């Protein structure tokens, strides 16, 4: 875990500094210069922070669902602790992705919120996390709480393909890959990023995921201690 923590710190520091400080010039000469993207200019820097947080949100949700399903099979309380810890982190990253996205949308699309399909889906994801924690707080018996919240997380996970694959093709939107995009509609956007940006972008993805892994580890260990304190025999 120490290696993961150290590499997360190093990579995110590098992404922060290079993502903000590397100049954007019309003719980039090497890794230390980014090309100008028409219509985006300096606002392009948001991609290094917004996309990795949004990506980590989805990873955290899937991990939470995975441990929920494992709890249903094994009935091992440790899996439920992991599921809840991951959902809490997912909620945090979801808020970060929403804020970075809304700020960027204000300066690029003119308003903080436009109900673009991707904005709708992140809003729904926030609602799902909210509902998940509301459900958890409404059940007192630990086993029942673990069981029902795992079922709810799975049910919510079943609707995710609709948001990723179906909705963006039906409703026209502003994000790349939406209906009406001249580059073609689809869930996977083909990246035509310059290599110098791609390096920082991929390091951002790796860095934020490592941060998530480390935070998850810390949260699970704390949750285990609290769980042991509340159940003396365990």
């Amino acid at each position, binding site marked *: 875990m120490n290696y993961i923590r150290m590499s997360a710190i190093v990579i995110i520091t590098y992404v922060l500094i290079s993502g903000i400080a590397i100049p954007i010039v019309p003719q980039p000469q090497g890794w230390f210069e980014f090309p100008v993207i028409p219509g985006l200019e300096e606002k392009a820097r948001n991609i290094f922070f917004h996309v990795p947080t949004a990506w980590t949100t989805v990873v955290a949700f899937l991990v939470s669902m995975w441990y929920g399903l494992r709890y249903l099979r094994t009935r091992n309380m440790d899996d439920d602790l992991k599921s809840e810890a991951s959902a809490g982190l997912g909620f945090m990253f979801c808020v970060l992705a929403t804020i970075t996205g809304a700020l960027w949308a204000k300066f690029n699309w003119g308003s903080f919120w436009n109900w673009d399909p991707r904005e709708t889906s992140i809003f*729904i994801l926030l609602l799902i996390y909210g509902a998940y924690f509301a459900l958890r707080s*409404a*059940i007192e018996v630990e086993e*029942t709480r673990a069981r029902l919240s795992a*079922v*709810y997380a799975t*049910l919510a996970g079943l*609707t995710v393909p609709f948001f990723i694959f179906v909705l963006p093709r*039906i409703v026209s939107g502003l994000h790349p890959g939406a209906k009406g995009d001249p580059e073609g509609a689809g869930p996977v956007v083909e990246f035509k990023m310059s290599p110098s940006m791609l390096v920082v972008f991929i390091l951002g993805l790796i860095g934020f995921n490592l941060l998530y892994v480390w935070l998850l580890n810390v949260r699970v260990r704390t949750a285990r201690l609290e769980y042991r304190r509340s159940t003396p025999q365990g």
Partner: protein
Amino acid sequence: MSVRAQIGAVVVKDVRSEVRNRYAINALVMFVVTAVATILFALRSEQPGPATLAGMYWVVIFFSAMSGLARIFVSEEERGTALTLQLTTSPGILFAGKLAVNTGLTLLLTLSVSALYIVTFPGFVIRSPDIFALTVLLGSIGFSASATILAAIIAKANSRGTLYPVLSFPILIPLLMTVMNATEKALEGAAFIEAVGDMQVLVGYCLIMIAGSFLLFDYVWND
């Protein structure tokens, strides 16, 4: 007893107890009338377009359903009959029966809201009956599939009344957006071919939700 007879027995039991106290029907009817009356008071003589009407139509159905459909499992917990059901039927059969009853209730609900809208809104004219009928049918099935499994979850939790819409909304959103889209097309008089995409989404949603609910219901129902 064959599987079909067992499912039928669950349906008959629920219909009979509903006929005796008419709890769900009364609550649904009163909720629909109140909601539509409030909309009419708010609009006064304003004539909304198809998009607004289609949206308001499903808003009324969503909130009415949220007030009535949870009853199907909550009543079993309140009357203390859940244990008897656990002993006498298997979870799959019980869920199929409850799903059938809730689908019937939702269909009844959509039909009565449609009738009320046709009478009270001059703009609510169904120009493509084929799109409308299929949307209402698939919408009701998908709606009750999600509502039934969530009702089973809710029945085991505290503060059921407020929690039910909170849990249902994110899961029903893909369905709601699609049925609103399709209903708008039905009101505008679009050809059926234009709504095929929406119908595919609805069929997909129904299949995924019914299959998922059947797989997960065991874990909700058995302690």
